[in-house]
């Protein structure tokens, strides 16, 4: 019997507003301070610590950000939409309830398109709603302490229909949503700090079966790779259980990335009881058509439009274009490189080949550098004009591939100009025909036997000849140029 998986994702997107959702406390640490380094309980006030008698006042920026997300995903906007209280006890939840949206969320019925080898797929969104984050419990030996810096930080939760069928689709969706919220500039997108975290609902059923299987929720996965691994493992586990005649238990599981497995966090013996009801402290949010229009016209270019533009304008493959547009800073950086190169490129040099070369440097060398050094695109020292300049030199064969990579490494880590590093590293390629010709001629003369073999049709010998010339020039000669010169001389002498 063959099985298929039914997957739905719920993503918590931390909004990057200045202040918290219901009070004036800063929503994030000072620039340059990570959440982990922020002093414990330094961004709190009577409201977000739920002192008796305090009341929430909605930060209007949150509504605007949620509207951006809703409109960018073709959702219908609900007005009025209503805050509800989700009642439960946990030490990191100061009020004893979370203010969220339940029956009447701000946005519903949208979709996100994802790329698959088989083409485009539409993933329907059930809803997007606004809510507040909770604090964080910290455990010190026998003590449990609560850090409320995060309590009241605004979130949107984006909930899909169960439209995803494979782990790859889930990670593609996660990437597409990530690209969207960073393009919309409503989320800082710092995955390590939990700015963007997914819960996956996974069930399996025999192919052909219309009823859904028992659903298992995998909580808090914050990486594109882990979501794929977690779901892959979970599908496998569920199928094996069914094959072994066991029953799937409805439960919440966590993903252990070190071991690559999901593990039980808690079993839902009965339906959870959150006693939702409309929050009497907050008026329903009324959104006018005018407000919707203002947000709509101000929407920036979305990642998918950007990707399509890169494909059509620069003939980039859809793979290359999608890698660039997963991260807005990267894609914008790329656009700026092109803008630098365009006026400087020789008429005969075509923009698509410049674009392809620049894209290769970005998506292989630069991304590798970022991963290796655990930094963000915004933190590197290189500027778009540097990378543009380097690409121009590389395409014009003034530096070799190896040379270009060496220069790039320096630009990323230390900054400085392309010219400076090309000279310093001595990677300028010799392109002067006259100078080069002399060296070629002398080398050919020194290796007369091999040259004769070449002239008589043994093409493979060219490698040896070029190698000798490169040796003599200390690697500075342009190998394809050398090859052309040898061919010329052979032709003349033949």
């Amino acid at each position, binding site marked *: 019997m063959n099985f298929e998986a039914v997957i739905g994702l719920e993503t918590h997107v931390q909004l990057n507003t200045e202040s918290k959702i219901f009070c004036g406390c800063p929503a994030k640490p000072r620039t340059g301070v990570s959440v982990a380094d922020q002093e414990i309980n330094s961004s709190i006030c009577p409201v977000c610590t739920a002192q008796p008698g*305090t009341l929430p006042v909605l930060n209007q920026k949150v509504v605007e950000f949620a509207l951006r997300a809703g409109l960018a995903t073709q959702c219908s906007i609900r007005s009025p939409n209503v805050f509800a209280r989700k009642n439960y*006890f946990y030490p990191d939840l100061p009020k004893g309830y979370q203010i969220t949206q339940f029956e009447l969320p701000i946005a519903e019925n949208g979709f996100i398109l994802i790329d698959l080898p088989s083409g485009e797929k539409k993933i329907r969104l059930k809803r997007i709603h606004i809510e507040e984050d909770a604090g964080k419990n910290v455990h010190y030996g026998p003590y449990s302490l609560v850090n409320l810096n995060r309590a009241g930080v605004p979130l949107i939760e984006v909930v899909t229909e169960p439209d995803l069928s494979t782990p790859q689709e889930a990670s593609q969706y996660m990437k597409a949503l990530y690209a969207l919220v960073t393009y919309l500039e409503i989320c800082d997108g710092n995955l390590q700090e939990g700015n963007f975290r997914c819960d996956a609902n996974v069930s399996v059923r025999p192919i052909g079966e219309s009823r859904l299987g028992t659903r298992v929720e995998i909580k808090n996965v914050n990486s594109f790779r882990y979501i794929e691994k977690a779901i892959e493992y979970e599908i496998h586990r569920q199928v094996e259980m069914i094959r072994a005649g066991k029953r799937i238990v409805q439960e919440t599981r966590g993903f252990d990335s070190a071991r690559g497995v999901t593990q039980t966090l808690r079993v839902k013996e009965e339906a959870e009881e959150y006693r939702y009801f409309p929050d009497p402290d*907050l*008026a329903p949010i009324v959104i006018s058509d005018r407000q919707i229009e203002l947000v709509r016209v101000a929407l920036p270019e979305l990642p998918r439009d950007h990707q399509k533009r890169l494909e059509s304008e620069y003939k980039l493959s859809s793979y290359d274009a999608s890698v660039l547009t997963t991260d807005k800073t990267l894609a914008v950086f790329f656009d700026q490189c092109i803008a630098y190169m365009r006026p400087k490129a020789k008429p005969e040099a075509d923009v698509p080949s410049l674009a392809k070369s620049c894209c290769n440097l970005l998506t292989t060398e630069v991304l590798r550098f970022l991963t290796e050094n655990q930094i963000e695109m915004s933190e590197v020292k290189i500027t778009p004009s540097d990378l543009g300049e380097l690409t121009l030199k590389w395409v014009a064969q003034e530096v070799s591939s190896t040379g270009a990579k060496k220069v790039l490494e320096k630009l990323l880590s230390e900054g400085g100009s392309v010219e400076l590093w090309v000279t310093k590293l001595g990677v300028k390629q010799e392109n002067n025909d006259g100078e080069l010709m002399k060296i070629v001629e002398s080398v050919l003369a020194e290796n007369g036997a091999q040259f004769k073999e070449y002239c008589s049709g043994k093409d493979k010998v060219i490698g040896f000849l070029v190698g000798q010339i490169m040796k003599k020039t200390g690697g500075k000669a342009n190998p394809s140029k050398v090859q052309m010169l040898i061919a010329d001389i052979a032709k003349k002498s033949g």
Partner: protein
Amino acid sequence: MKNSQTVLAFQESWLAEPRVALDKKIAEYLGSIVVDQTGAFLSQVAETKLRSQAETLANELKTQGEKLFKEKPLAGVCIGIKDNIAVEGEQLTCGSRILEKYRAPYSATVIERCEKAGALIFGKLNLDEFAMGSSGENSAYLKTSHPTHPDRVCGGSSSGSALAVAGRLVDTSLGSDTGGSIRLPASFCGTFGLKPTYGRVSRYGLVAYGSSLDQIGPLSNSLSDLELMARVIYGSDPRDSTSVQTELAGWNSEVSKSANPRPQFGFLADNCLEGLQPEIRLQYEVLKEQARSKGAQVSEIDLGFLKQSVPVYYIIAMCEASSNLSRFDGVRYQSRAAASFEASKLDEFYESTRALFGSEVKKRILLGAFALSSGYYDDYYLKAAKVRRLIAQELNQVFQKIEAIVLPTSSTTAFKKGERQTDPVKMFLSDLYTVVANLAGVPALAFPHSKDNEGLPIGFQIMGPGFSDEKLVIWAEQYLTQAIDVGAK
């Protein structure tokens, strides 16, 4: 000698002798508080603080003269605060063990307004725990007694607020009214009490019981004092999203000019007055004649929904309370049961601390949590919310035809202590005439009228449409109150 001056009268005498009058008044009040037997105060502000505030005010009065009262209309006014309203640095027990050691780190908006207006805050007043109760018998601290009849209750939940005013321990006080909690004790104790239009007084700093019903309001011995307080505490507040965010929130002293000189008052028909204590029934007729003789137009109205209003009120209030009181979990506020330190599971931790709630509070949390749970939500909370809207609509229709409704505050005068503790239904019915104003969000003013055969105060209330607060004060003064002082003493 107990002070029976109105604030305005006091300010006039104070003006004549800035050095003496306020000091004398403070001394009198402090003396009265010391000997008080009614259980009005839970805590007092340090006398040195009061004295230094008084000195500053006296100096300002000397230099500014009468102008001071323009800038600070409550200059020299001694007030008490129900202990569910936050005053920075002071206790905020809500009459509960669960907040025994808590001190408010901030002040309620009404407190900031009163302080800015020159009021002297004397201390925190007793109340039914978390404002839940109609008799004043549910405080976890001091027992309360009726000011003139010690075997009787004083009414709740703003028990201390009524006692402090009736016993002349302060000039005026602030209470809170969720289903009659200002008006009921005011009537039992023979004082005035105002439940404002919902949203005209900020709730910021009032510990929530039923958030959609709660309003802070003043209690006093005269209508002029009541209006003086209202003028200060009314007004929109950006910190309370449910506060009216226009200038309509503020108290409008110009209203008197536009008030109808021959207002139409509705008095309840017989079927709405079943079970009313005979003396109250009689005095209601007297009041009707009095209003008519003073020039008001009087008609009879049938508020058929009164009976539904009590269950609707309790469902909504308890549902909101069950959620509002979730924050008292032992994690913050320095309130933690000793047993919680031994807890091995999170549930045990919560159970041990939440056991500190009194039985009335526990009952309401349990009932509210039940009514909100899935499977019951539609039948209870949702249905109650719908009926609430219908009641508000019907009431609004009534106000299309008449300008205000004059009705009893309670079916009885102050009852005997313990009498209703074992009969929750009878206790809940104490709120029959008061909860409608909260459900509909409209203002209601309780005023003293007469006394029953035992000498217990009989009070009535006048309820108008939303934003008629100012008119209620004018009408009560012109048509409904008698010239003689009917206060407790």
